[in-house]
């Protein structure tokens, strides 16, 4: 912990976020896209915890607590939506689900 500064943690969080966004843009499988979205969320929580620790206040950590709660609920609903979509359309590939565009 001695020599690790705030910038190091923020750098890791930023790179994780960039990787997540890349995945969202590149991947075609809805489930993998959803996982990449979760990765972006996790990167944001990492930055929050780092700020919280280096500013010596608890609020950022509490915020992360709520984010984890909401993310759990959100994943449950999102996966239920994907399963319902698969039942109706028989696919989870984003380039085969273009009804609204066509």
């Amino acid at each position: 912990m001695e020599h690790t500064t705030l910038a190091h943690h923020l750098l890791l969080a930023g790179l994780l976020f960039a990787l997540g966004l890349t995945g969202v843009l590149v991947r075609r499988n809805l489930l993998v896209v959803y996982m990449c979205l979760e990765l972006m969320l996790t990167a944001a929580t990492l930055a929050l915890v780092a700020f919280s620790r280096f500013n010596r206040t608890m609020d950022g950590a509490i915020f992360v607590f709520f984010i984890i709660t909401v993310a759990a609920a959100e994943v449950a609903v999102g996966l239920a939506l994907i399963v319902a979509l698969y039942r109706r359309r028989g696919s989870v590939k984003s380039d085969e689900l273009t009804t609204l565009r066509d």
Partner: protein
Amino acid sequence: MPDGLFIFFAALTLGAASLLVLSRNAVTSAMGMILALVGVAADFFLLDAYFLGVLQVLVYAGAVMVLFLFVIMLLTDTAESPEGYPWKSAALGLAVFFFLAAGVLWLFVWSGAVPGTAAGANPPELTAAPGEFVTAAKGFGRLLYTKYLLPLEIAGFLLLVALVGVVSLSKDPVEENA
């Protein structure tokens, strides 16, 4: 230079996240995601946020990823689209990644916008004033039931809403019409 543990877990996290993005097999992607989440949890530990690290492993790497794996195995025919690699979107994604990564590098390493101070002494245990950063889970309880009581109640209600919503979403439409 950061210390060795941070470098190790940061490399693990970034490597696993790349596996998540690059792997063509959805199950391998999920494994990379789990590893990345565990790496982030390790970084929480390095930041003295022990309670959040444990929560991250239990809720995210545990419950949420089991749900993901379950749905992946239920739905996907493992291999990604057979008709060639999507080069166009891959190029776009790479461009976005390098743009963002360059920006992040510049902002946090060279611009000097973030002061390079260390975190300071280990945070106090329970003698700290309310609201100050503490490592013990008690610090969470103290704030959750005072300053953040209303958000806590709303979060609980949100979980209930999600529960009901998932049940109604996963009802079989065929069964309903019968």
